[in-house]
C-alpha cells in the first residue's frame, strides 16, 4: 500500500493551527475537570464499582431460609475445583449431627484458600445443594497466607442467608403432597 503524503501548505507548516487546536482541546478538558468535576477517576476505596448481576466474585457458603447449613459435605466442589482451593473435612462415622432435616451430614470443616481460588464458578455450578455461591466480593486482602484461608464459620458468615433459593422446602412440600395424592390401584 502506498500512503499518499500530501505537501503541507505554508499555513500548516507554521504549526500554528495545530498548536491553537491543541490548546483549545487541552484547555477544554482542563476547565471541565478542574471546575466542573468531570474527572473520570473513581476514588476507589471510598467509591466502589456497582457489581452487575451474575458477577463471579469470591465463593462463599450460604445458609437456607431457616439459617441452617446447606452444604452436605458431598465434596463435589472439592473434586471439581481446578486450582484445588477447596478442602472439605467430612464429619466421619461419628461426626456431629446435621442441623436440618433432609440432610445426612454436614462438613466438619470447609476451607477455601482464596489465594488459590480462580473465581471460575465450577463449585457453584456443580453443587447439588445450591450451598456455595460466587458472591460479589472482589477485593480480598489479608496480612498473611493463613489469613487468606477462609474456614467454614467465616464462609458462612460472609455468605449469609440465601432465602430465595429454597430447594429442600419445595422438595418437602412436593413429597408431602405425594403422600396424600390419591393413587389409583
Amino acid at each position, binding site marked *: 500500500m502506498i500512503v499518499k503524503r500530501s505537501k503541507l501548505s505554508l499555513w500548516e507548516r507554521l504549526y500554528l493551527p495545530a498548536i491553537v487546536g491543541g*490548546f483549545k*482541546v*487541552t484547555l477544554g*478538558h*482542563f476547565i471541565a*475537570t478542574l471546575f466542573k468535576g*468531570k474527572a*473520570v*477517576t473513581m476514588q476507589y476505596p471510598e467509591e466502589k464499582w456497582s457489581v452487575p448481576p451474575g458477577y463471579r466474585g469470591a465463593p462463599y457458603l450460604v445458609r437456607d431460609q431457616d439459617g441452617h447449613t446447606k452444604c452436605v459435605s458431598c465434596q463435589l466442589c472439592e473434586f471439581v475445583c481446578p486450582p484445588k482451593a477447596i478442602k472439605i473435612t467430612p464429619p466421619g462415622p461419628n461426626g456431629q449431627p446435621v442441623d436440618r432435616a433432609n440432610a445426612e451430614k454436614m462438613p466438619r470443616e470447609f476451607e477455601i484458600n482464596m489465594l488459590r481460588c480462580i473465581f471460575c464458578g465450577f463449585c457453584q455450578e456443580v453443587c447439588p445443594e445450591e450451598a456455595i455461591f460466587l458472591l460479589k466480593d472482589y477485593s480480598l486482602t489479608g496480612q498473611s497466607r493463613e489469613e487468606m484461608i477462609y474456614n467454614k464459620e467465616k464462609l458462612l458468615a460472609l455468605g449469609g442467608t440465601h432465602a430465595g433459593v429454597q430447594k429442600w422446602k419445595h422438595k418437602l412440600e412436593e413429597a408431602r403432597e405425594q403422600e396424600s395424592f390419591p393413587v389409583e390401584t
Partner: protein
Amino acid sequence: MDWNFILFSALKIVCVIIPLLTMVAYAVLAERKISAFIQDRVGPNRTAPPLARYVPVLGPLLTRWGMFQPLADGLKLFLKEDFTPDHVRKMYFWLAPAIAMIPAFLTIAVIPFGSVLGGQQMVIADLNVGILYTFGIVSLGVYGIVLAGYAANSKYPFLGGIRSSAQMISYEIAMGMSVIPVFLIAGNLNLSKLIAYQATHGWMVFYAPVSFFIFLIAAFAETNRLPFDLPESETELVGGYHTEYSSMKFGLFFLGEYANMIAASAMMVTLFFGGWTLPFLGLDQTASNIGMGLAHIGVFILKIGVLMTLFIWVRWMLPRFRYDQLMDLGWRRFIPLALANILVTAVVLWMRTQPA
C-alpha cells in the same frame, strides 16, 4: 578578600538553592496535577503525613492538592536501591547525573532575582558578561546527557545521548543568536542593566518578539521538553539516556530537567519580561525597604511560575517532532530567522542613529 562579600554571597547561594530545589519539587507536582486535569484525571490527592488529616480544613485540603506528594517522592528516590548495572562505564556513570544537574544551578547565579534586600543586591554574581556566562554554562548541560548515554553502554541510552548531542548543539546556535538583538537594543551584556533598561523603556518582548519566539522554542529544545524530548522519548527509546539509571541518580536527571526549565524560565523573564519589575504600583524602582524587596522577589517567582505553566502545558498539548523535522526546524528555519532578526534589528538601530 572582602569577608563581608564572601559571607553574603554564601548566604545568597543558600537562599537561592533551597527555594530552587523546592520549586523543582513542586514543579513536578504541578506537572502531575496539570497533566491530570488535561487528561480528565485528578492527580495525586492521597499522600499525607500520618497526622495531617486531624488538622481541620487545612490538612485535608493540602492532601487533596497533593502538597505532600513531593516529600514522599523525594524520600522514595533516596531510599530506592541504587543499582549499577555490570556493563556500564563506572566513572562516567557516576559523573553524568552530577554534570546534568550542576549547569542548571550555575545558570541561576547571574540572574537578578530581586532588586535590593537589606542593602544587598539580589543577584549572586553581577557579571558584566552575564549572558555569555549563561551560554557557556548552558552548553555544558549537554555533556551530562551525552555522558549518561555513553556510560550506560547499551543501545537505547546511546541513541538518546546521540540525539541529545545533535539536538542541543543545533538549538544552542539559534538560541545564542536569538538574544543578540536584545543586547543590541539594550546596549549592555549585564543582566541587571538589562532589567534597568526594561524598567524605563518597557519589556523587551515588545521590542524583539521574534527573538522571544526563537528563544522560547530553543529553550524547549535545550531542556528536552516535549515537543523536543527526543533524547528521552519513552515510547521509542525506553527511557532514553537515563534508561540504566535508578534511585537518586535517576532523580538527579529528573530534578536536573526541572531545574533547567526553571533556569530557562528565569532567563526568559530576565531577558524579555522585565525581570523582577512590574510597570505599575511603583514596582519598577529599586526597592527602598524590605517589603518592596520581597515583593520584587515575589514578582520574579510569579513570572517564572507563569512560564513554567507554559512549559508544562505544552508537554501535554503537542506530540513529539520527528527527528528530521526537529533538525529541519532548527537549522533551516530558526537559524536563518535568527540571523535575519539580527540584521533587521541592527539596520533599524543604525537608521535611528542617522541624522534625518
